[in-house]
């Protein structure tokens, strides 16, 4: 396989954990809540997913358990941020730290254990194409994540549910005045975000690198949060940012393997720097930023 084919094939899988978590965070932030606990929720999902899959040999069960874990942790966040109207930044950070701690605890007995990655699912016809064929030879979660991105884009922009979520995020006071249960809608969004973050973690630990190592999420939750903000809360740009990051991180690996004369730390940091830089350029148009910004993001609302 050529280097190009390797990158093409690997980008989608490398991007999936960030993309899945970022899509969840997109819904949360569109409803006006800033959840900074994504990293911890991913870590928790990764541990739960790994442990359950390891013992049951059923990856579906592992994903379901990871989603459930993400939901439970996100509900703890929701209690702080919605019911007690605590500062969302502080509550999110605290929950994130909690998630990472629980993750280490759960994963401890299985440190360095491995799993069998599930089989890939080539798309007949497309997967045999020259050069770009490997792009269409992925595991099922990659396909589902891309479909989910399209579905969420459609829901946010073309459905009543999406209108309601955006309305709550823009002006919770006005949404309440015309009779929407703001807190319940935000609760739903937070739980959805938690579920996706949990599954994103499970993908990283059971499919992408099916091996348990403590701290394996390694900042991908933070990249997800950054993708949402710099992607100006739009599904399409978030997908672009996630793919860019995925491609660059693979490029870094190749560079190391090829013996590029740069310290590995520098190579490893390239995808973070370049992704943030690219997205910052995209979002530097103040006018467009202002039109897309979620007006009530991070503000507590009671009532």
């Amino acid at each position, binding site marked *: 396989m050529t280097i190009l084919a390797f990158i093409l094939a690997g980008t989608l899988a490398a991007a999936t954990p960030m993309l899945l978590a970022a899509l969840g965070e997109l819904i949360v932030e569109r409803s006006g809540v800033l959840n900074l606990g994504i990293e911890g929720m991913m870590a928790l999902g990764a541990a739960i997913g790994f442990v359950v899959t390891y013992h049951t040999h059923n990856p579906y069960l592992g994903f379901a358990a990871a989603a459930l874990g993400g939901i439970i942790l996100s509900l703890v966040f929701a209690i702080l941020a919605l019911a007690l109207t605590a500062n969302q930044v502080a509550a999110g950070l605290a929950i994130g730290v909690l998630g990472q701690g629980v993750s280490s605890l759960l994963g401890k007995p299985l440190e360095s254990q491995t799993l069998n990655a599930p089989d890939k699912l080539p798309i007949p016809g497309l997967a045999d194409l020259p050069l770009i064929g490997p792009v269409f030879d992925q595991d099922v979660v990659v396909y589902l994540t891309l479909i989910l991105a399209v579905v969420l884009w459609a829901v946010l922009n073309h459905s*009543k549910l999406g*209108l*309601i979520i*955006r*309305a709550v995020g*823009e*002006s919770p*006071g*006005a*949404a*309440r*005045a*015309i*009779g*929407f249960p703001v807190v319940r809608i935000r609760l739903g969004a937070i739980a959805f975000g938690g579920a996706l973050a949990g599954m994103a973690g499970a993908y990283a630990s059971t499919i992408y690198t099916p091996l348990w190592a403590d701290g394996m999420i390694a900042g991908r939750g933070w990249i997800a949060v950054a993708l949402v903000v710099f992607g100006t809360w739009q599904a399409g740009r978030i997908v672009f940012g996630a793919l860019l990051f995925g491609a660059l991180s693979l490029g870094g690996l190749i560079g190391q393997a090829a013996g590029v004369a740069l310290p590995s730390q520098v190579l490893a940091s390239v995808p973070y720097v370049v992704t943030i830089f690219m997205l910052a350029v995209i979002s530097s148009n*103040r*006018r467009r930023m*202002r*039109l*897309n910004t979620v*007006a009530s993001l991070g503000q507590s609302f009671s009532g």
Partner: protein
Amino acid sequence: MTPLLQLKGISKRYGGVQANSGIDLRVDAGSIHAILGENGAGKSTLMKLIYGVEVPDDGQIIWKGQPAHLSNPSDARRLGIGMVFQHFSLFETLTVVQNMALIVPGSKAALSARIRDLGARFGLTIDPRAVVHSLSVGERQRVEILRCLLLNPELLILDEPTSVLPPPSVALLFDTLRALKAKGMAILFISHKLEEIRDLCDTATILRQGKVTARLAPRERSARELATLMIGRPMPPAVHPTPQGLGEQRLELARLDYLNDDPFGVSLSDIGLSVRGGEILGIAGVSGNGQQELAALISGELTLPGSHRDCVRLMGLPVGDLGAAERRLRSFAFVPEDRLGRGAVPDMSLSDNALLTAHSRGLVRNGFIRRQTERSFTADCIARFDVRTPGPHAEAGSLSGGNLQKFIMGREMMLDPAVLLVAQPTWGVDIGAATEIRQRLVAMRNKGAAIIVISEEIEELFEICDRLHVLHKGRLSPSLDVARTTVDEVGTWMIGAAA
């Protein structure tokens, strides 16, 4: 005939404030009923109770003879109650039809057709595809009213609908409301503007401090009588400035352009005005036509590049590139429109708030605050400007709107500035305090200060100003002499219809 809506003994308390107590009200189909009262009299609370946004502590709401329990606005909408809010409940980043779709069932195409149809019938034309943030305030109000009408309400509540409209739009709104009444709809019209109520409404209920003080037919009473019932004592007399000799040019704006990169803001173009000592210049216009930007450019919160410093001249010198503090040093003072947050810091004491702009008056020595001087300056301000407060130690946020405004005005006036800019001096201030504030401004003018007042209230500008400009979509009308112009002429400029 059974009344459409009846309230019996409605009470509502927020913390220590009794917003409504024992309110009885009756509204009949096919009539326009006014709720009249000052800011803080409990009008908005009462409407929120009827619309189900809040739940009363006590009392009964009776709809067509049946007791009704409204715990949510959707309950009220189901009964047939619609409400147009004072601060609109529209979502700026959504289109008109998306805003409607949030509470009105139906496909987008069907909704758009109904919006056009209803708009044509009641004089509420609007493009369903327009994004709300691109609409003027009057158009937004149309959207709100249309959103209610799409649900075929039997009772329509309008909370201070005219406070945001220029006079010609008020006339259009009243035509619409009369047409709705003729169709048999009941309308609850909340206002503190007496002439409007006498013009439009069949019956009125007057509230004061949360209680009903009168029920009457407003057409049979004079505006003066209504005002007395509303504020509980005779209206203080208005003061009009008498002509006087003018001093030198104090503030001058010339060929001032400002390009706003905020899509929700307004750009200004070719602004020119000048104020001399001893006159009050008014800036009329509906809010959101560039008032905030103009105020920020004059105060120095927005600065111009050095090449354009000549566009703003203070006391004859170019200051366009100087910041707010430097302009204040050149004997300029500013009272911004939002009292809490910009005019004063809510959690700081009045003394510390005085320090913020009066620090140059000996309140600071060698970088240290002189607490004694600070306190006596503040106490002096409280006494001279009749601020009702426990004392200089009281937190700014604990004062009522009117009292805090008097304090902020007092603080700036005690600096004895050569030029004073006041934005919306009487927003949310009760009539008594508003009259006092206007009297102070005129007194200051008589002593030779140059004053600019930015206000939405045309009556206020006509009362105290010597000259007026009208701001519309970032452009300024020519100077109009108050003695020679009319409300109608100013109104035409406000909607941009003047030549």
